[in-house]
């Protein structure tokens, strides 16, 4: 080996060992002192090569991007460093500094960071390591790593009281329970977290009116548009005006006519009777809707405001029990579904279709004149004669979005069955609503139930149940 090295060295310096010098060269390369020098050179070269390889490895390590997935306060977190995937098999020591107060710990055995984070923020962690080929007394190398811990969204919502001196102020929570003859009705409406967070108002509203002497009941639910400045008043007016319309409309003559038409329809499900009843409903309810629209328009004009400032949806049911069943008439504009449930038959009849746009939020309102001129106007009304039912449910999108998510689910019994089970206490907080005729305090239970948690769904919530 020594001989080869010296031969190459001389050649590299253009020195030729001629024939006559061969013997001298043989002595030279076997001289122990020279052999020793060559060995030292080779050893130093190897050391240099190793040092270079180490520096390259550390530089690579420094460049390598390590991404810890984001954590969230209160949510169990676990992330393991995959040593093989990271090509870190040559790393001997590994610790992580900076986790001390986070609620997370590093386990050297599993190379995992886990725990339940207790503080949020943009954490800077320091990964300390040493390569296997390094001596144990070498100070460890450091690599900075970011770990983002999101706050717990539940802790971020504020509950700022609404301004009670506002002329259109309404209570943040409202609830009621009433008897409608053979049936009970319970309703609750609550300001959503998104409004509570900045001291906004509840924009939903509802109204129940029962005319005990005639047996008719009106059930109305309205949702004020988030963007309209007086929508909280719009939703209240929509409910109030439709109720006052029926108050006036229900003359002795009207009552006699509707009774006669419904009885004829029941006795004789023929085209003629259906047509007569349908046109009566269309006329009466249609007129009521138009009056409601006009009265809101008048109110807006009186207040020097725009009709658009009062944007609100409206869904209502006018209902009466006959000895042969329940006559149920309905109207709807907006995105609040009305479902008629029959638990025995495991069936649901959806009384309305929803105004939903291609993008979220593209709904229609009672305050939009174009709904009256649209060809779809007549399809907003419905009539159904049911021998019996278990629940009649009206809601705003604050309930529909989290509980049904998409329109297709509204026609599925399973989705409604889940809602009924949820109301019966099958939910995260075991919050139960006792839908029994003799129960008291059901309206308070329903108001409490409305506090359920659903990611991304923090709108006002209004739910009305006839049972």
């Amino acid at each position, binding site marked *: 080996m020594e001989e080869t090295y010296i031969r190459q060295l001389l050649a590299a310096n253009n020195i030729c060992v001629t024939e006559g010098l061969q013997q001298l060269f043989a002595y030279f390369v076997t001289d122990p002192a020279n052999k020793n020098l060559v060995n030292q050179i080779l050893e130093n070269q190897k050391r240099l090569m190793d040092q270079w390889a180490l520096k390259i490895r550390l530089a690579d390590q420094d460049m390598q991007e390590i*991404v810890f997935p984001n954590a969230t306060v209160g949510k169990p977190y676990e992330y393991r460093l995959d040593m093989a995937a990271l090509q870190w098999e040559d790393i001997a020591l590994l610790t992580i500094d900076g986790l001390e107060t986070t609620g997370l710990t590093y386990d050297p055995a599993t190379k995992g960071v886990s725990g339940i984070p207790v503080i949020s923020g943009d954490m800077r962690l320091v990964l300390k390591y040493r390569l296997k080929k390094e001596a144990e007394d070498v100070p460890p190398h450091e690599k900075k790593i970011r770990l983002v811990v*999101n706050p717990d969204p539940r802790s*971020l919502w504020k509950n700022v009281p609404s301004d009670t001196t506002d002329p259109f102020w309404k209570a943040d929570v409202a609830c009621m329970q009433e008897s409608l003859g053979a049936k009970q009705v319970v309703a609750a409406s609550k300001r959503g977290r998104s409004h509570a967070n900045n001291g906004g108002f509840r924009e939903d509203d509802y109204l129940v009116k029962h005319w005990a002497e005639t047996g008719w009941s009106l059930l109305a639910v309205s949702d004020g548009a988030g963007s309209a400045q007086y929508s909280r008043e719009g939703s209240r007016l929509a409910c109030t005006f439709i109720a006052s319309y029926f108050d006036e409309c229900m003359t002795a003559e009207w009552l006699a006519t509707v009774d006669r038409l419904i009885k004829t329809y029941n006795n004789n499900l023929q085209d003629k009777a259906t047509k007569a009843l349908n046109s009566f409903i269309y006329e009466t309810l249609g007129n009521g809707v138009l009056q409601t629209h006009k009265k809101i328009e008048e109110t807006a004009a009186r207040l020097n405001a725009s009709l658009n400032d009062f944007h609100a949806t409206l869904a209502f049911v006018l209902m009466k029990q006959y000895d042969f069943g329940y006559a149920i008439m309905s109207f709807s504009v907006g995105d609040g579904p009305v479902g008629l449930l029959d638990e025995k038959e495991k069936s649901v009849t959806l009384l309305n279709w929803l105004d939903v746009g291609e993008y979220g939020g593209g709904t229609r309102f009672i305050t939009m004149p174009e709904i009256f001129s649209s060809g779809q106007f007549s399809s907003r009304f419905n009539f159904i004669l049911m021998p019996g039912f278990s629940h009649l449910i009206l809601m705003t999108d604050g309930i529909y979005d989290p509980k049904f998510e998409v329109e297709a689910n509204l026609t599925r019994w399973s989705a409604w069955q889940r809602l009924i089970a949820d109301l019966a206490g099958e939910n995260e907080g075991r919050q139960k609503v006792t839908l029994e005729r003799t129960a008291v305090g059901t309206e308070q239970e329903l108001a409490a139930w409305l506090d359920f948690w659903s990611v991304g769904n923090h709108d006002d919530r209004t739910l009305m149940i006839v049972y």
Partner: protein
Amino acid sequence: MRRLPVYFLLDTSGSMYGEPIQALNNALSGMVNTLRLDPHALDSVWLSIITFDREVKEVTPLTELVTFQLPEITCPQSGPTHTGKCLEFLYEKVNQDVRKGSQEQKGDWRPLLFIFTDGKPSDLKLYHEMIPKVKQLNFATIVGCAAGKSADNALLKELTDTVVHLDTADSATLKQFFKWVSDTIEQGNKSMGTSEVIVLPPPPQELNLVI
């Protein structure tokens, strides 16, 4: 769950090299941290970052804020500004990403678009071709930001009525601007429930709204 998609188009052409790109990175990081403290945003905001210089690069595809990790934005030392090509890319992406409501799927909220540039498009023809197409995408708002002396307000104005002009692209100004951007995103969240264009929060004094 309804998402609020937010797109950022960032100019990374040569003129951004050095201090401006550093300032942009810091400002973006501040903005994301601010958004994380907003419960609305944490629940609904999805972010996408697309950069443009000679190349158009999707630095981060549409990702929910909860898992979003801001990458380091870098730029070459010189080169053209292919804004038109970027709009073309955006057009494809928005059509792919943004969910429309249907019987079986919840529609997203109308997306927001922020475009940040310190120059003017080098591919003017394509830029002009893309403007009407981008406008068709039904953004709830488009905010144009022209930073520095060579940024062209008028060309951005063709894309959107909301153009903010920053005199310099330094750290303090960009921070102000992106604070305003996060306010705007939060405003977008609050306006949910309407199909109308969102009302922008008043910009801080450092920003000049180009009328």
